[in-house]
């Protein structure tokens, strides 16, 4: 039983981190209709900057620098490339971000090389025991921080004028622009926020029990794609639910791997994608996504 509780807590914590990534993905999609396959690279960039700087300027400053770097990178992608792409087709825009991802990921993995970088977090591998259940401090920190950020974001999204502008732009870009909302600014904000969220997620993807930031980290970040998709690409609620679902699935399947040997080794990494396929079979637009209606 205690194993189960442990797995659930770890799963929820991992899920909160996936939700952070998926949220950024969804924000970009809502604001600019671009599906950003370069998201994993933004994450890797943020993590890398944090990892390189933390020895010199301390953990918190390095984290802030990482967040800033990922945000700036996101903004650059929008300003330098996507703004100039006069393409209507979503698939082609998606492929453009794949091109960007290839460039960024290659350069970053080259710089990382075979090293495993620590991000210098203050929790390290300390473990807290609550009623006989051992939980790593990093997992608690991930859960608390992710929950706080997501809450803050959702509140801002609902109550600030910036949030209203954002939602209006997502709802109907043309009308919003006629109402005096600057769409270019909205999309820049979306990319910056998404980059920042990804950098925070990078921290929690690479702390204990994961050894650190290495070239495989972007693959871990890929699991946020099924999270965003199964929740519904245009739904922030969906991103949260999707993230938790993916985190829980992965944690439970990995934890009970011993009983699932007939599925082969390493099924934990594949389970999120299987769950996604099953959800999409039943609900092709994800759990909370808007179904495309076509009337003739």
């Amino acid at each position, binding site marked *: 039983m205690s194993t189960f509780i442990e797995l659930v807590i770890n799963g929820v914590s991992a899920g909160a981190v996936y939700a952070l990534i998926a949220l950024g993905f969804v924000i970009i999609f809502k604001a600019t209709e671009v599906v950003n396959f370069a998201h994993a690279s933004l994450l890797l960039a943020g993590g890398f900057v944090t990892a390189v700087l933390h020895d010199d300027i301390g953990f918190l400053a390095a984290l802030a620098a990482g967040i800033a770097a990922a945000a700036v990178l996101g903004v650059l992608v929008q300003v330098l490339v996507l703004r100039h792409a*006069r393409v209507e087709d979503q698939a082609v825009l998606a492929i*453009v971000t794949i091109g960007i991802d290839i460039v960024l990921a290659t350069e970053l993995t080259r710089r990382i090389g075979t090293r495993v970088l620590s991000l210098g977090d203050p929790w390290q591998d300390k473990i807290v025991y609550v009623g006989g259940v051992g939980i790593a401090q990093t997992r608690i920190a991930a859960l608390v921080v992710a929950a706080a950020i997501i809450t803050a974001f959702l509140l801002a999204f609902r109550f600030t004028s910036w949030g209203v502008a954002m939602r209006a732009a997502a709802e109907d870009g043309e009308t919003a622009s006629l109402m005096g909302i600057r769409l270019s600014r909205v999309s820049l904000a979306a990319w910056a926020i998404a980059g920042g969220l990804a950098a925070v997620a990078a921290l929690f993807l690479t702390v204990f029990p994961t050894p650190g930031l290495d070239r495989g980290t972007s693959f871990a970040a*890929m699991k946020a794609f099924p999270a965003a998709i199964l929740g519904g690409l245009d739904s922030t609620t969906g991103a949260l639910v999707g993230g938790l679902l993916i985190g829980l699935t992965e944690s439970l399947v990995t934890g009970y791997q011993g009983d699932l040997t007939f599925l082969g080794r390493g099924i934990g*990494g*594949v389970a999120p994608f299987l769950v996604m*396929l099953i959800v999409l079979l039943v609900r092709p637009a*994800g759990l909370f996504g808007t179904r495309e209606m*076509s009337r003739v």
Partner: protein
Amino acid sequence: MSERRTSPRLIGPGRWWLVPVGFAVMLLPPFYLDAFWLQTGLFAMSAAIGAIGLNLLTGSTGQLSMGHAFFLAVGAYGYVYLASSPEDGMTGLGLPTPLAFLGAIVLAGVAGGAFSPIAGRLRGVYLGIASLALIFIGQHVLFNAESVTGGFNGRNVPPLEIFGFSFDDSPGVVVLNVPFGALERLWFLAVALLVPAAWIARGILRGRPGRAMNTIRDHEVAAAVMGVPVARYRAGVFVLSSMYAGAAGALLALAFRRTVPDYFGMFLALDYLAMIVIGGLGSVAGAVAGAVFVSVLPQLLTRFGDDLPMVAAPGSGGVSPAEAARILYGAAVVAVVLFLPRGLAGVWPMLRSAASRRRASRHLTPLEKEEQPA
């Protein structure tokens, strides 16, 4: 939809000379090139077959697929499984190799058909990410189904043998004083596969099905209203594109002589998307051009890396040729979408129309017209 938009004419009137030139380009290399370039050419040709398939699906019908590498893997491992005889813990059917090759293509088609319940329901990017799942699931299966795939270490590929002629290094075949080893023989096999593959795809794109596919891409509802059976077309194109991938995979396996699961990962799937975008979405010639660009670039950089600035030997800490190639073609994808929306395949028609425009405008000024050579 104009003829030119769907498929720029490959051989028009007055361009008959392209035919002998094309044959020379495709048939002469084995007599002159060394093993390194032959190998590169083989990869390029198998990639071209796969890219044509992906372009039918993504470029012409608008179905984003990030899972193309999975179907290549089905083709490659399908061939190995069907052709090998069972030995040391490995299973296999030991079929005659040409039959195994066809079987591999059919298997890939079946895999594509099996995915169609999902592919048929999803649109656009949802389909892209769902097909990304195929890559991860495929890798999992390849690593775990050891008796079929050989697991991490992969499996040897039995050479193809057609009517007693074996596509391997067996001695005794000398044509025009050039000893024909496996690579030379496989080169002709690849040409013999690529030409009909391109021909069939071009026929499909230019005919009624091609129009239907483009309409589905541009507006699905409009297509349905005009009487295109959208679901059937989408499923059909998915199967067809998987079969192209299967053929490409089986050919790759023959060229590699050993299949390893690592190769068929996400990078390969992204490479294929890069090929069709760089070459030109929705055009057969574009798919071939993109495939050649993406497969030859890393080899060029490897070969001539010493003479290039910025490219260092692998492991020395600088940018290795493979990395430089990836960065270059990633940037090429972005640049093509920004500046050449129709890809490399669009360059030639663009130059032609620019030239004819210039000529046309010159007709207006009689003075210049006199200067024109007759």
